[in-house]
């Protein structure tokens, strides 16, 4: 029925049924029947059409069963029932589609944020092109109010950029030369010239979209069980309907079974909750990868934090230099040379310090090696240099004098990390690096503990630094001097004791631990592909307070899913009993069925508005 929209059809056929009822009241049964026939035909034809399409491909659809029920009712002269069943089915599917749209609205909102055009600068001229046609290394100009069309690096300009679509962060961030910008972010004011580094499907924004899309359709455990149940339920009820017809010849009863044979509320009960929950998260810059992860996250009782870059800012800075037998600048120069080849955040701090001091780092080092969890080594002008922690010195039999040992301990007691440099077996100096604790870390940990979680800290850093940081944040249990594989070991230990462990890290240095945990959580995921791929929950921004929120959201989603499942099972049971004791007939069966589907969807929609600030307010 292409000349009527679904909405118009529902309205028209509903009205016709009402008119027919009026005629019936006045005993004008011929007129009443005529209206009912037309109504059945109008409401029924899209259903028949769909049923026919699927039969053609050997699939028994709910539409086919409804069609049989409607035709059956028609033949036994139950015109009102036939019209009502068709109308209610159509109305139900219309309302279902409308309300389900709402549960998906967050995804649509996200999709709408996609950049469409780009202003490219080529041979000194500006040109508008479609965002999908931007290539790597293209130079793009973005002005106030425009969307950034690709991930890239700022080469010129100064602007405030709203990255809410990516990080969920509502406040604009200032961007100047060398800063990274993300596709999908909106330039608030100012202008930027950027060089495209990631385009099309590779941008962080596209990856978020893909992840959310996949996640929303990744099934939860309970959902898989329900789907299995539904697979058997429908044929069983059809069989029952046939048996009832053969043995009792009660056509009405047998047709009613067909109407209730699709456990609609049950089939969508879990998916709608998950879609709404994941959608809510996505809006806040929290990506939860699917239903199963939501269920697992709701059950976590231990949260393990990595220290560097997670509990701390991850931007370590050189705060003190102690050179032994050479100038401070010489010490910085040598260590920076070695560290310039390492990816370690501590190393980068030293390199940054050298740059700040204007020390040039020429590349005259050989045999560079990384000693995982210990440091680096290389040869410079035939001298063997090592830069790293105490462990590395021990392996290389470097002696530490009593005074120096005292100095190192003092530094560590202040929560600083001492990076030692030695030439051969001679200690040449100590560079102290400090990484500030995130201001919101203590509050976040307090909240997690208040929510009944056990919080621990795992770090590769030494005991004294670890103890200082743990103390400052309020974490009682911490494990220091761990190599990456020891972190994994620690998590496995906890798991074998029956704990459900969530591991929080930056997703770069702690990938094995994140992969081992029941739920791996990466912070500051925007821009780091590895983190987005490995972690089960990705916090796009590096705002820690999103962590308790995401765990609470997972709990709320799981609770919502359970409510829906319970309600849907109840409806299935009630409908069955109702039909058997003849309380429920064709039209009322259809109505209860459609009503239960709507209630399940509406319950899930509540999750879209879930916000735990309200809860927090109540608690405190």
């Amino acid at each position, binding site marked *: 029925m292409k000349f009527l929209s679904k909405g118009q059809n529902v309205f028209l056929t509903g009205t016709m049924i009402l008119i027919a009822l009026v005629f019936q009241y006045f005993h004008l049964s011929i007129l009443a029947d005529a209206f009912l026939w037309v109504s059945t035909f109008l409401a029924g034809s899209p259903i028949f*059409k*769909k049923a026919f399409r699927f039969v053609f*491909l*050997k*699939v028994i659809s709910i539409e086919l069963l409804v069609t049989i029920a409607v035709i059956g009712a028609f033949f036994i002269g139950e015109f009102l029932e036939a019209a009502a069943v068709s109308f209610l089915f159509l109305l139900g599917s219309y309302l279902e589609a409308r309300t389900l749209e709402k549960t998906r609205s967050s995804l649509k909102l996200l999709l709408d944020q996609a950049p469409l055009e780009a202003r490219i600068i080529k041979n000194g001229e500006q040109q508008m092109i479609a965002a999908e046609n931007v290539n790597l290394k293209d130079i793009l100009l973005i002005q106030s109010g425009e969307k950034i069309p690709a991930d890239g690096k700022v080469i010129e300009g100064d602007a405030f950029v709203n990255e809410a679509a990516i990080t969920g962060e509502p406040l604009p961030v200032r961007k100047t030369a060398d800063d990274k910008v993300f596709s999908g972010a909106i330039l608030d004011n100012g202008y930027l010239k950027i060089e495209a580094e990631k385009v099309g499907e590779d941008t962080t924004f596209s990856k978020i979209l893909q992840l959310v899309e996949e996640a929303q*359709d990744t099934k939860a455990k309970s959902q898989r069980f329900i789907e299995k149940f539904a697979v058997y339920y429908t044929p069983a009820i059809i069989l029952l309907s046939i048996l009832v017809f053969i043995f009792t010849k009660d056509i009405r009863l047998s047709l009613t079974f067909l109407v209730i044979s699709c456990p609609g509320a049950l089939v969508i009960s879990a998916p709608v909750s998950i879609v709404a929950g994941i959608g809510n998260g996505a809006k806040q810059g929290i990506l939860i990868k699917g239903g199963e992860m939501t269920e697992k996250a709701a059950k976590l009782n231990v949260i393990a934090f990595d220290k560097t870059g997670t509990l701390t800012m991850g931007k370590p800075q050189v705060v003190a230099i102690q050179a032994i037998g050479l100038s401070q600048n010489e010490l910085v120069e040598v260590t920076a040379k070695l560290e310039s080849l390492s990816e370690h955040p501590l190393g980068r701090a030293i390199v940054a310090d050298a740059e700040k001091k204007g020390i040039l780092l020429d590349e005259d080092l050989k045999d560079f090696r990384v000693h995982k969890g210990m440091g680096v080594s290389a040869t410079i002008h035939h001298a063997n240099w090592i830069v790293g922690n105490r462990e590395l010195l021990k392996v290389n039999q470097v002696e530490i004098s009593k005074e120096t040992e005292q100095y190192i301990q003092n530094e560590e007691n202040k929560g600083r990390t001492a990076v030692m440099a030695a030439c051969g077996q001679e200690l040449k100096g100590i560079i102290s690096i400090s990484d500030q604790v995130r201001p919101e870390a203590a509050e976040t940990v307090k909240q997690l503990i208040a929510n009944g979680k056990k919080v621990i800290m795992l770090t590769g850093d030494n005991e004294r630094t670890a103890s200082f940081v743990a103390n400052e944040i309020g974490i009682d249990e911490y494990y220091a001097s761990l190599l990456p594989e020891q972190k994994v070991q620690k998590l496995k230990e906890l798991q074998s004791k029956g704990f459900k462990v969530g591991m929080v890290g930056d997703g770069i240095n702690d990938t094995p631990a994140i992969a081992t945990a029941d739920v791996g959580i990466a912070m500051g995921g925007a821009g780091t592909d590895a983190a987005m791929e490995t972690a089960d929950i990705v916090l796009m921004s590096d705002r820690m307070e999103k962590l308790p929120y995401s765990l609470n959201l997972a709990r709320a989603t799981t609770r919502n899913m359970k409510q829906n499942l319970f309600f849907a099972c109840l409806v299935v049971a009630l409908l069955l009993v109702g039909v058997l004791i003849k309380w429920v007939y064709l039209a009322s069966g259809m109505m209860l069925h459609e009503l239960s589907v709507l209630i399940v969807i509406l319950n899930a929609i509540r999750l879209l508005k879930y916000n735990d600030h309200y809860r927090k307010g109540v608690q405190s």
Partner: protein
Amino acid sequence: MKTITFQVDGLTCPSCAQHIEKVMTGQKGVQETKVLYNAQKVKISFDETVGNSSEYEEILNKLGYDVKSQKIA
């Protein structure tokens, strides 16, 4: 082995998603069908030497789902 993603219109009920999965998986060359109901996408992994993506599109159309766009990877 290739994967084609159809962006479709009119996927309004979750049970339709199951039907599409069933029908498409039964087609020539199809290894796996995944219907992303919420994203309104049908992802089909298929052996391009056996199956043909334009046939899949036709079947989706026949089932009453208009294909808005498609992407092969």
